[in-house]
């Protein structure tokens, strides 16, 4: 009995920590895809950029860990505004194929650029001492950093949901996701809204990349290596939803750890089977609209 409980706690704890990273990175993708109908396969680039901002500022300028996380958010959000205005905006009306190709192209270029600037080897993350080691709780050890991830993740999610549910900006975003034409006719400047949302979403991806850098090491191959997971979270969760990707990330994180711990023989098929099954059951995603 105790053994079973211990296993359940492990599954929930590890799965949730992983889900937090996935969610923080992917939620921006979900909202921008839902809002602009844009198939963005370059989203991982922003997460990678966040990881580099965080690790490089720590290594080269001695910025402490927490401020470097903030920097990752700010810098990536700022960069993404330039991307959105100069490049993405030109393709809002374009077909799915164009958007897919264009963003794959961007991802390729980013990979080459990262390799050129930072070399092929993954970045080192120097966590502060207070985040290292383990926390004892109820006679069990929990890795401190993963506890930190869950706490920070919950805080970010709460802030994000409050922002979207309670502020004018959030109301505008929700209106535009629901019905863009209607929102425009109400005088909402959707162009500006897109840019802001895109910046927020990319900034969050940057933050997620930085937060996760210790678990998903940052190197030039990052954007494509993890793309599938980000896309799964978004597709399974449902476009344009805040809650959907959260549930999907939890499902993926906890399901994957459960599968790993209980029946490792199934291996990678778990994720594929669940994704296919859920998409067949609900093609629009768990919380997506038709």
């Amino acid at each position, binding site marked *: 009995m105790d053994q079973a409980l211990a296993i359940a706690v492990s599954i929930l704890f590890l799965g949730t920590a992983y889900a937090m990273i996935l969610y923080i990175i992917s939620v921006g993708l979900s909202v921008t895809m839902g809002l602009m109908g844009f198939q963005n396969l370059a989203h991982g680039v922003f997460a990678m950029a966040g990881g580099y901002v965080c690790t490089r500022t720590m290594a080269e300028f001695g910025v402490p860990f927490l401020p470097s996380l903030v920097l990752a958010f700010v810098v990536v959000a700022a960069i993404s505004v330039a991307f959105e205005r100069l490049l993405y905006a030109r393709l809002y009306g374009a077909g799915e194929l164009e958007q897919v190709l264009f963003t794959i192209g961007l991802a390729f270029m980013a990979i080459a650029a990262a390799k050129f600037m930072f070399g092929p*080897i993954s970045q*080192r993350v120097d966590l502060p001492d207070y985040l290292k080691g383990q926390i004892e709780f109820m006679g069990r050890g929990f890795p401190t950093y993963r506890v930190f991830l869950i706490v920070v993740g919950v805080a970010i999610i709460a802030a994000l949901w409050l922002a979207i549910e309670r502020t004018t900006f959030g109301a505008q975003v929700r209106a535009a996701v629901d019905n863009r034409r209607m929102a425009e006719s109400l005088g909402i400047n959707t162009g500006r809204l897109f840019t802001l949302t895109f910046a927020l979403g990319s900034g969050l991806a940057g933050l997620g990349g930085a937060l996760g850098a210790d678990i998903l090491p940052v190197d030039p191959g990052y954007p494509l290596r993890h793309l599938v997971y980000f896309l799964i979270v978004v597709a399974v969760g449902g476009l344009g939803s805040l809650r959907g990707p959260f549930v999907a990330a939890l499902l993926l994180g906890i399901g994957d750890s459960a599968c790993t711990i209980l029946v490792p023989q199934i291996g*990678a098929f778990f994720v594929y089977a669940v994704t296919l099954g859920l998409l067949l059951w609900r093609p629009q995603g768990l919380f997506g609209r038709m």
Partner: protein
Amino acid sequence: MRLFRIATLALTAIVSATAADAQTVRVGFVTSLSGPSASIGDLMDKAVRLYIEQNAASIAPVRVEIIRRDDTGPNPEVARRLTQELITRERVQLLTGYIYTPNAMAVAPLINEARIPTIIMNAGTSAIVRQSQMFARVSFTMWQSAYPLGQWTARQQGVRRSYTLVADYAPGHDSEQAFIRGFTEGGGQNVAAVRMPMNTVDFAPFLQRVRDERPDALFIFVPAGVVARGIMKAYADLGLAQAGIRLVGQGDITPDEELPNMTDVPEGIITMHHYSADADRPANRAFVEAWRRAYGANSTPSFYSVGAWDAMAAIFHVIREQRGQIDPARTMELLRGWENPNSPRGMVRIDRETRDVVQNEYLRRLERVDGRLVNREIETIPMVSDPWVRFNPAPPR
């Protein structure tokens, strides 16, 4: 038609003979220079260039010309095409390189037909060298390190139960079997053999399971690189070391080039490998020094580099012995039993019978020296030949 073909072949022979007269030996070098494994190709290429720079004089007046080709990763069709072109268009007399097993396997029929001696710099599946009489290998095999590691682990005090955790692909399967065989033959018992999907991102759940199982020793194999770092991180995070679970593995889990970025990884991890950049041999110190002079103080050679280095040493040997006139049969004869006592990895030999590498395996302990992690060699298992060959005798021809 047939006559025509014979005529062409004859002509080809004359052309290649003339090329040799010009005292230049043409060597085809197939490796990955782009794509995800570009950094491996780079480590090999740097070693090749460094070797030639240092040793060109030793074969004068003969010159060696390296013709590099990029196979872009484990793409046997590309490797095969490039090799075919190297043979037919570039008229190379020797071939070398080949990071990946499928790529090496795919060229076997070609080198058989064209009779081009081929020295494998890296690919590590045991069965490769049997595919062609023209193959010789100077790299390693999975069994070569994992099997003796299993034996060694079984000999340690208080280690009775082991647990294996390997990446779920062919090299991982090899390692798993080799380790378990060595360990159980030494009297130990392997309690679980778990294979991790190649796309695993978060390794913590795997290690949590290990922790709950509480084996005495944990054997891990994952491909060197980002993945290795991820799993070592999870090992540290979950406090497996504190729980008394001893981690052992092949060199791939503590690759020299990733060590600077592996923070917080506990000391004491035991790995078995044929090379570490920190090894304290004169030949190795000279090698690493020359490397850093040429490629910068932050650059570190790895076992990929040493494979390439020794392949070049073998190539120079056959060129020297034949004074630049490369004859396939004679070349293979020269390669059989070739030895290099001055390799950065210590003594290395190509077995006379199997044409496979025989070398020292070093037991290393991960330690912090001057604040930086190094793989310190603590024990040498001399001149190990591939155990797999012993367990899987070649079918009679």
